[in-house]
């Protein structure tokens, strides 16, 4: 599924990375624990998280996460969007919960890593 299809399906807001929304994602992972994200053995996944801080963005950049969805309508700070721009990341927000986002994406065919 492309990021842009995902944006449409869930009514996401694209904060950063508009130019990359035609890219595909096949796998997703949901966690608020960045230590866990750093142990993933796969690149190019979609991260669904409730953790709205610069560390979530930095961790995603380092772990080669393709796109981040920040759940529950949390505020994206300037620092977060600056980091995302700098790291060429796709940063998305949703008013939905992590559970709801994960459920919808799973039903739409996005796969779990583990």
């Amino acid at each position, binding site marked *: 599924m492309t990021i842009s299809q995902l944006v449409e399906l869930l009514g996401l807001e694209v904060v950063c990375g508009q130019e990359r929304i035609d890219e595909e994602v096949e796998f997703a992972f949901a966690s608020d624990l960045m*230590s866990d994200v*750093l142990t993933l053995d796969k*690149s190019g996944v979609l991260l669904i998280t409730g*953790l709205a801080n610069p*560390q979530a963005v930095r961790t995603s950049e*380092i772990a080669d996460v393709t796109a981040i969805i920040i759940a529950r309508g949390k505020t994206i700070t300037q620092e977060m969007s600056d980091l995302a721009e700098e790291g060429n990341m796709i940063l998305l927000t949703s008013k939905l919960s992590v559970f709801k986002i994960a459920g919808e994406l799973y039903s739409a065919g996005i796969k779990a890593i583990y």
Partner: protein
Amino acid sequence: MNFGFPMRLQYMISGGDFNNAGAAASSLKKILKQLSIDSELVRKIVVALYEAEVNVVAHAYSGLINIELDHEKILIVIQDEGPGIPDIDKAMEAGFSTASEEVRSMGFGAGMGLPNIKKNTSTLSVESEVGKGTKLEMIIYLNT
């Protein structure tokens, strides 16, 4: 590859400066990508460095990163001034953590850092002196 190897890089880390934790890993990632090093290998290298940076920011007062890259391997040495690790074997155990609430609230401190560095490197050595600091030396071979 022919880029004037060995290439040497140095970065500073400030204890407690969470917003810059990962700045070195991010910079190294961009450099390694320019050198067309395999992206899975780059990921292992920068994840290991990032984990180490977060450890220094979370636990120590300051740190220095020295990196040496040649055709065969990357050597990363992270030396910090800090409280040191009293029991290194314990610190290497998955799940063991002495991280503060502040560190945990940022999404870290789950006792996974050192084990994850070990997982992503070819060799890892940890030396520490309580009250002085800790030195991590990691090597990742480029042609595995």
